[in-house]
């Protein structure tokens, strides 16, 4: 088992002929992901890594019945690509694109929910179920199948933790990067609920950062609804207020969104919080042994 993507994933790549899109399509195909189609307006008849390209999502859906779509189109066209995916019935859309205006995402988020679809991201590394499907831009080789569910707001920091877990012999059911923007389609709470319901996931690692209150919401959710052990890590203990730390969403504003608050909330919910990424595997082992 796993969450959201697996062997049955039939992946569509929107923006497949672009630099990012074609590079990562090749990587995903090499990993073994079942990439069934790509879309680039005007690209019909082409192929990328053996994957057929269509002009519109409607055509790709009719010809290849994808059930997941990943988006690699530039920020100003990405909202339109998300609408095209969900309006054509794709139930799960992953948006890698960074730099989408917040106002656009307010409407996109509401629309995706109305359609009963799920969005992951934007500005996220994607999702991987080791050995089954890599849907994103993460390096596949650091992952290993196993019992840990991992959810993170970050990219390379996630790889750091995954790498530490794998080296410690702790494989992953699924690793999911929810993204660093102020408005994201899938929150910590959403991912935690999925891991809680996944029988193969035995423990969960949650990697947060400064900004917003999603970690606090997650802490509340964990204390009320999660029975599996959870270990946390929060980046940005030393971040100053009022300054955006790279990610559009990583900003302490109005005194809210500090690492200290988030760590306190998680610890109050019984979640051990690592003081450094390398401390995560030991905490997970301890939590699982309890």
């Amino acid at each position, binding site marked *: 088992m796993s969450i959201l993507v697996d062997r049955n994933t039939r992946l569509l790549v929107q923006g497949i002929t672009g630099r990012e899109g074609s590079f990562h399509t090749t990587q995903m195909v090499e990993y073994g992901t079942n990439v069934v189609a790509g879309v680039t307006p005007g690209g019909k008849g082409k192929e990328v890594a053996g994957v057929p390209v269509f002009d519109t999502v409607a055509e790709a859906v009719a010809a290849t019945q994808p059930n997941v779509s990943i988006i690699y189109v530039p920020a100003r066209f990405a909202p339109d690509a998300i609408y095209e995916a969900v309006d054509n019935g794709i139930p799960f859309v992953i948006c890698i694109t960074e*730099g989408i205006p917040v106002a656009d995402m307010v*409407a996109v988020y509401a629309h995706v929910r109305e359609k009963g679809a799920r969005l992951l991201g934007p500005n996220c590394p994607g999702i991987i179920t080791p050995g089954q499907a890599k849907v994103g831009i993460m390096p596949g080789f650091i992952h290993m199948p196993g019992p840990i569910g991992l959810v993170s707001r970050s990219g390379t920091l996630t*790889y*750091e933790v995954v790498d530490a877990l794998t080296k410690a012999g702790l494989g992953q059911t699924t690793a999911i990067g929810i993204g660093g923007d102020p408005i994201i389609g899938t929150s910590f709470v959403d991912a935690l609920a999925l891991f809680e319901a996944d029988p193969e996931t035995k423990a969960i690692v949650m990697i947060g950062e400064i900004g917003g*209150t999603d970690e606090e919401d997650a802490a509340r959710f964990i204390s009320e609804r999660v029975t599996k052990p959870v270990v946390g890590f929060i*980046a940005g203990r*030393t971040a100053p207020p009022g300054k*955006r730390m790279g990610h559009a969403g990583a900003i302490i504003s*109005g005194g809210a969104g500090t690492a200290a608050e988030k760590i306190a909330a998680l610890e109050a919910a019984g979640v051990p919080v690592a003081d450094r990424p390398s401390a995560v595997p030991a905490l997970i082992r301890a939590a699982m042994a309890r």
Partner: protein
Amino acid sequence: MDIHEYQAAEIFGRYGIPVNPGEVAETPAQAEEIAAKFGTLVAVKSQVHTGGRGKAGGIRIAKTPEAAREAAEAILGMDIKGHVVNKVLIARGADIAREFYLGVVLDRPRRQITIMASAEGGVDIEEVARERPEKIVRALADPELGLHPWQARQVAFQLGLAPELINGFASIVMKLYDAYVKEDATLAEINPLVLTSSGEWIALDSKMSFDDNALFRHPGIEQLRDLAEENATELEARHSGISFVKLDGDIGCIVNGAGLAMATMDAVKLHGGEPANFLDVGGGASAEQVAKAFRLVTADPSVRAILINIFGGITRGDVVAEGITTALGQVDVKVPIVVRLSGTNAEEGRQLLAEAGLTAVDSMDDAAAAVVRAA
């Protein structure tokens, strides 16, 4: 992106919000001249991108043109929370009967734009939110249809306004929301929104910030940028696609990825050091980007050692190592450098770096410890 009060007032005015007319002075003499022209009591207000100007003495009332000159003399050049005052806004005094707060912001947990209003205006709204949250009235805009007039009216009623004041207040709410949405703001705020004793509404202080990601569709807003208010290094970094934030310590950091960059700063601190900056070099960590990062970090004279932390993912570690050595050929770095390289082909990369005479380690903890020792 932030702008000054006078710029925000100009934008709000374009949306039909009644703002307090004023003029900007850059010298005490200009301040006196403007005050003389107004011929009334004026406020002399520092124009800086930070809050708490009043408490810092950056806002003064002047009854005469001479007093305005003196106030400007005192305020111009003042340092308010690290911001030097280069401009003052001279604005007519208003006949204040009541002060309100009105703001439009993003409610992140609900993923919706929200109106916040309070009958306790003119004070720090964050303090009100913390200590007397019941004094704040909110309305969530429909994410697809926008703010409805009934919501604006409801906010006015919830503030306890008399029936004859409802439409005036609600109309300002609608216009402020409109400005927020049309200009891709991240904040649009009037504090205080004043009710005069003759029953008129005046936006006495205007504040607006913008979504950097949406500036491409607002060239006019980009032009309002005050370069004097921005950290030159941060600006330069942004143009190179590097996220950079200056901090107070002495350990320069060069990292790929925002989350890992924050974790790196935290690791430096954990090992007894103080990070000099946040720096996310972006995806590939090419020689060019690394060279730019070196220039940004070494521009800070307090930097006594540099920690490079790269997790090789899609990009191979040996390629990153080559980038680092190439960059070091282009930039003369005089402080010790510790490189942490992990991930794909990391071992080959570390060997390349060691051959170039750099301390290269596998673990982030070891690297943080080493760089703190080296500083």
